[in-house]
């Protein structure tokens, strides 16, 4: 895909911009499109899991599999919409929604302690035993005043994570 910017029209850029609620500027969207086409080597219109994993820095990330679940097979519009949580213009709610989405794989609107244990497993690998993980999660829930079997809702996420501020910004390079 050599001359990618000629394939984007103004209509398309604005469409994508509206879809991501103006979190990315038009130049950033053009940049993202070039990146999308570079990653989508076979021109299918979406990026497969393999293609994501061929980026070494992504493959090394603990949560790469979960992110693959969210990101793979998306067309460009959806791709930008999902990544808009990382824009500096995104609100804290956007970011929290994204984090919630990473936790809540079963998509039932709640993050149970099981979900938390699973994410902890991704982050810590084999260096924590199951018991330790269970203990950590139970401890964390109890310390914050929730019961052991409580399932967190997005509002709880907001309460817990909003006081320190959430630093989850990524800059899109514009050439």
């Amino acid at each position, binding site marked *: 895909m050599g001359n990618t910017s000629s394939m984007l029209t103004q209509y398309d850029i604005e469409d994508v911009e509206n879809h991501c609620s103006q979190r990315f500027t038009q130049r950033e969207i053009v940049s993202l499109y070039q990146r999308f086409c570079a990653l989508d080597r076979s*021109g299918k219109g979406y990026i497969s899991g393999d293609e994501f994993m061929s980026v070494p820095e992504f493959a090394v990330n603990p949560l790469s599999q979960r992110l693959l679940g969210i990101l793979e097979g998306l*067309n460009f519009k959806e791709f930008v919409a999902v990544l808009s949580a990382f824009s500096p213009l995104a609100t804290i709610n956007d970011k929290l929604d994204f984090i919630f989405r990473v936790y809540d794989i079963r998509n039932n609107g709640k993050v149970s302690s099981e979900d938390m244990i699973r994410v902890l497993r991704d982050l810590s690998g084999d260096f924590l035993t199951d018991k330790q993980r269970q203990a950590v999660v139970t401890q964390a829930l109890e310390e914050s005043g929730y019961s052991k079997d409580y399932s967190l809702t997005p509002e709880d996420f907001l309460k817990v994570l909003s006081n320190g501020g959430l630093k989850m910004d990524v800059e899109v390079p514009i050439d």
Partner: protein
Amino acid sequence: MSGVDVRAQIADAVVVATQLGATLVLLNMKKAQKEPIRGENFRHVTENLGPPRTATCHSLDPGSAGVRTLAAGGESRLSSLARVLRSHAQIVPCDGRKKVGQSRRAARRGEARPAEGAARPERRSMEESKRADVYSVSKGGEKKYRGMRNPRLDNVLERVQGRDSSLFKPSASEINMYQRHLDEVLADSGPKADDDLLRNLLDLSPTLSEAASAIIDDSFTRCFKSNSPEPWNWNIYLFPLWVVGVIMRYGILFPIRLVLLIIGWVIFLGLFIPIHFCIKKHEKLRQKLERGLVEFICSVFVASWTGVIKYHGPRPSRRAKQVFVANHTSMIDFIVLEQMTAFAVIMQKHPGWVGLLQTTVLESLGCIWFNRTESKDRMIVAKKLKHHVEDPDSNPLLIFPEGTCVNNEYTVMFKKGAFELDCTVCPIAIKYNKIFVDAFWNSKKQSFTMHLLRLMTSWAVVCDVWYLEPQTLRPGETSIEFAERVRDMIADRAGIKKVPWDGYLKYYRPSVKLTEKKQQKFAESIVRQLDDRKSTRSLTTGLRDGGLS
């Protein structure tokens, strides 16, 4: 009557050609205008939603991943399968359909990681759970992740040298260096004991930001991107000129070059074979003649693509204990350098006619072959290298420490193997000018034959070669630092950028050890927090009990 016939035929031909030309011009102009029909060119990226989302388990079962990506390809599936079955010739159309590369990579992954037959609904947290803990890297302090890579992560990652089956496995000293860097990076971070534990657990923002920045831009992919040139010929007056150019290149220049090449080969083989087999007694004379012949055939090759090559700096001299290193863009690097001095090169053994050449002609020069995919190979090759360098009669050794072809805008990490041979290292910088053709050989996209054909049907290959000052290992410098220093010199002179990634990551996933170390750190910090709480709790209960009793 025949005259009238001929004229009529010519007139017909001219009319047809004009019509053809006109249609082509119009088509091109239409393409150039890009009528803003809403979503026409964009539909494939806005409406195609990819494979059904229920197929989430393909990354759990690496063996079938390649097949599934093939299946998703649609109409080119059969041709892709055919290509997969063929062993090496990967002649891929210019739109870069890489089904072969993908399925080969998937197959290799299938070998490297045994298929984990886990329960499908459980989304992959157990099996692929060796992950880097980036959680603690950037806690505290304003850390905004640019689309460029995290420079601190660079320092950590640059020391890892690929997976176990690669030629240059990370040695103990490298892992130590990696660990030191890791410690430096993590020294000022880590969740504090009195932080809200739930917040620490739920706050995935550093990890996620790293992943997102890798998705948005990463320097590794940029190293291997072949930038296809912007078309300049879509204009009514430029297009005919371009057509004339194409006719000249394909119709006139190419046959001449091909003939030249064939004549050159005939002369070469005609002289080389007798010399190789008949003059067994006078070794020195034979070697000298063979060297001269190889230099000759390389000059023929260079002439066959009209190579305009400028050599700067003093020509290499033959001495013992001397090794040459250069940055690598394509296999023609070797030909370009060989034209001036007969080097003995170490490179990957290729299949096909290139392999045949390697085993017959080039071996007489003292060239050494390795196989990237064999791990035991490494010891044998290292021994051969040492032996070669110590022999004063052997040809100067040329090594490409990057280990893979890079697109001549960047250099990837130099492997330290070339720098531990206890010799002077003479750097050579090569920079190709893309004005007529891009000399970068993307080995996943085209075979060497196609690459050569592309070069031979272009106007010229323009390049600069700089022979730089020989360097030796400074006291107190490790071979990795030495390699970096030489890489700095080469990148500076050739005007290309440096990237701290290992080129072998093109073929292999990053080593699991890297992520395991970080997971360990994270786990330790969690355990520490738990212990702290336990101890404070027991302290308070102890005090309370003590107070009561």
